[in-house]
């Protein structure tokens, strides 16, 4: 049975499942590094997922849909930025408002545009990037099956997430942009003193995180599912924040932590196929990612250090 569970597609599915979490987690990393808490990633992802489907429906192109998803995430992010940076509102409360707004907007627009609540019709999806025919028989066939599944089987946003993690990691620690971003979250007053605009820096960080949240939503609807269902993000935005913490506020760390959650998700889906053998109710499998999140937070938080100025509004002195 183990050979039936640990197949190439289990690992491929783990990487697919990790993608929306990783994108949102990296968004959380960038946002929190600038000193702004973003629990609105959940709402940005949901709005992106919805607008991606609507965009694809109206343009006929899932690429245009994905772009609209990104812009939609950014528009919600702009609200969060305005509230938490300009108005100095409590960032967690502003994030909650955006999450509820997103739930309401997607539900409302669903009935206005689609004409009914629940789930939309399927739309065109983004296709896998590669389509290579390799050997099918013998040892090479087996090796190729693994390589093909784990390396070459994905849709575009899955690869984008990996690139974003690596480039983000490099940029955060090796560029002037990264240094400034980290300064904003550690000691905004000092950053301000040496002439870095705290306001502008934080705005751009929040908006980038919104773009990543929107892209995560596009991955859900335009690559994984192919349609939108109300509330379909199911707290992924919150799990992503835990992944960001587990990844110690670094892009690659966020990606790897998301991989852990993605693997848990892939495994629970796989195990459900063996329900007749493993007599455990499906709800316990479905709970797994949430339980794992609590366990991970319990284990690492004390040792991971958050940016010092996180959650604190900045007032120019």
């Amino acid at each position, binding site marked *: 049975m183990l050979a039936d569970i640990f197949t190439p597609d289990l690992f491929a599915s783990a990487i697919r499942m990790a993608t929306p979490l990783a994108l949102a987690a990296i968004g959380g990393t960038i946002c929190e590094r600038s000193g702004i808490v973003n629990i609105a990633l959940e709402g940005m992802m949901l709005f992106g997922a919805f607008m991606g489907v609507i965009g694809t429906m109206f343009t006929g192109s899932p690429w245009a849909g994905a772009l609209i998803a990104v812009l939609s995430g950014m528009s919600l992010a702009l609200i969060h930025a305005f509230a938490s940076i300009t*108005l100095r*509102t409590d960032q967690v409360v*502003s994030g909650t408002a955006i999450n509820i*707004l997103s739930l309401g*907007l997607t539900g*409302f627009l669903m009935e206005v545009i689609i004409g009914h609540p629940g789930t939309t019709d399927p739309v065109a999806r983004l296709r896998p990037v590669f389509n290579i025919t390799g050997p099918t028989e013998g040892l090479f066939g087996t090796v190729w099956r693994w390589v093909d599944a784990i390396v070459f089987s994905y849709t575009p946003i899955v690869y984008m997430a990996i690139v974003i993690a690596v480039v983000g990691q490099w940029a955060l620690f090796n560029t002037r942009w990264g240094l400034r971003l980290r300064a904003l979250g550690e000691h905004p007053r000092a950053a301000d003193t040496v002439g870095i605009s705290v306001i502008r820096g934080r705005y751009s960080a929040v908006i980038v995180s919104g773009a990543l949240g929107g892209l995560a939503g596009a991955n859900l609807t335009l690559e994984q599912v192919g349609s939108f269902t109300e509330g379909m993000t199911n707290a992924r935005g919150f799990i992503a924040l835990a992944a960001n913490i587990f990844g110690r506020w670094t892009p690659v760390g966020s990606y790897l932590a998301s991989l852990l959650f993605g693997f848990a998700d892939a495994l629970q889906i796989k195990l459900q196929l063996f329900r007749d053998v493993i007599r455990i109710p499906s709800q316990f499998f479905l709970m797994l990612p949430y339980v794992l999140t609590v366990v991970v937070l319990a284990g690492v938080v004390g040792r991971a250090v958050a940016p010092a100025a996180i959650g604190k509004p900045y007032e120019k002195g």
Partner: protein
Amino acid sequence: MAELTRETLSKRVTGVLRELAVPLVSVAIAAAIGSVIMLVSGFDPLTAFAAMFKGAFGGGRQIGETMLRSTPLMFTGLAVAYGFRAGLFNIGAEGQLFMGGLSAAWLGIVLAGMPRPLNIVLMILAGAAIGAAWAFIPALLKAKVGAHEVITTMMFTYIGRYIVSWLVTGPLKAPGQIPQTNRLPVESTLPRLHEMLPFLTPSRVHFGFVIAVLLAMFVWWVLKYTSLGYESRAVGYNPFASETGGISVPATTIKALCISGALAGLAGVTEVMGVHLRLFDQFSAGFGFTGIAVALLAKNNPIGVIAAAILFGGLSAGGGTMQLEADVPQKVILIIQALIIFLVAAEQIARWVIGWTERKGVENAG
């Protein structure tokens, strides 16, 4: 002496009015933005709000329905407000509510045949206890390792929902096709208020409403006059100063989040004992999350929670009529709710509007 009292009294009244100004103006702005959204989407906001008002307050049955829907919101609103007072954001009230509902659905059957007052008391206590227990691990993690309660209580909400979903489809499932528990015997239910107040007939509003209002007063008293309440507020206001002043921040954090969980658990208990008389997957219409809006609109004041819960209960009760008569999707209420949270939190916007209208008033008078 009399002069002085009158002066303090009038000061108090202006003080209260000033306190109320921001929430009231915020609700008005949210309704205005909601109207614009309706207009843009091709609906008539006036018809919509008129239908909503009729559905919420148009008669005895409607008023009863508003009271019914405000009941769980008072409990969850109190839960979130108590947490906020102690500097904690219990975003997972929904999960504690689910566990409270679960305990009532189970215990109500176990206690069949016992006297009704005893059952009511036991079921309420058990629901509060399990609600507190469901908040305990997040509370412990917050106090010991600093894990953010927003993430952990949210995770526990999903875990709780899946547990309920498993139990109503499996071990606690009543015979038949529908995944739900057995109906509670009458001795394990809360009496309906129309038995005492006939003008509410035939609404389903139950005794839980009275419990919620009394509890709001009790929580207000606890926060204002007990050392428990004082410690919670002190830690919420300034944990460092509290620690220096001899209050244990971790212990207070754990206590406060568990009290918050207990209050949220009661929402589930009264929904099961008063409304559905059984448990199923979808027995809560997101009351835990709406509780956040209730608490914020009430500025975390337990007495304010009563009023804010009635407002949101009215929105919810009127939403159905609005959808039927004005054809506007009920989801618009969620949008208005989000806008209210946003505007109350970012109170500069409301203050700016108030200041602007006051300046206008002065100009017009001059």
